[in-house]
């Protein structure tokens, strides 16, 4: 595998979607290639950074309104 091909297999690798044979070749290449190792780490760091976008508190007014809706559902369903 060439580095040029490696970069297109990163997600398949991270997803566990490579065949056993391809995964072995992939890992063999990574072990000996600083560039592809750095690229793989960048992909992982990217995923983690994107994950930080989930941190957004719910505005209190919305929470109150929804909780109110939940309460009236409970009141009518029980």
């Amino acid at each position, binding site marked *: 595998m*060439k*580095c*040029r*091909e490696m*970069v*297109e297999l*990163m*997600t*398949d690798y991270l*997803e566990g*979607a490579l065949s056993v044979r391809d995964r072995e070749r992939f890992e063999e290449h990574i072990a000996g*290639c*600083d*560039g*592809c190792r*750095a*690229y793989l*780490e*960048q*992909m992982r*760091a*990217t*995923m*983690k*950074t*994107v*994950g*930080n*976008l*989930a*941190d*957004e*508190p*719910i*505005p209190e007014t*919305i*929470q109150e*309104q*929804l*909780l109110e*809706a*939940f*309460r009236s*559902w*409970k009141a009518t*369903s*029980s």
Partner: protein
Amino acid sequence: MRRQPISDGTSSELDALKRGDEAAFVDVLQRYHGPLMRLAIAYVRDRQIAEDVVQEAWLTAIRTLARFEGRSSLKTWISGIVINIARARRRKESRLLTFTSLLGGDDADRRKHTVDPSRFGSDGTWRELPHSWENVPESTLIGNETLTKVKAAIEDLPPKHREVIVMRDVAQLGAAEVSQLLGISAENQRVRLHRARAAVRKALEDYLA
């Protein structure tokens, strides 16, 4: 035999909601708000509209909670509701929707490079190695400025790629769940995810350089 729910600990959570447990409800509201907002924004762009979408989704969820059997996780279920409402809203309100989303399928995508070919020599190896981000301080990677860049990069993605990266990497839904929600094959899901992540990686690389 009944199928086991795909659970991330949410089946007891679901039971609590069905019992009308308010603390459990507030807990899921708070935990899912961020991911659901990102998901809605992936479709409708406008924050205010996205907030309306998420709110409407919760109201729908409350109304139909009793009928939900927990065959998918609570998060997947509510994500599906958000997607349906957001898509309907986008169709109704967006005159900005371009046709780019309709052009070029995943098969065409599969063959396109995600890394500038000029970064590799004729032998297919790196001309200049990508920089390690190991020395980038954690505070930089989670800083507001970085997150703003990441948000912008995600917004620039084609809609089909945008929805997948938000579902997978923001909402943390599983590959199978996302394929199912979007009605696409496992392979197409991966192709879209790969292109999305590669584009955001590139934006981060440009920013951190």
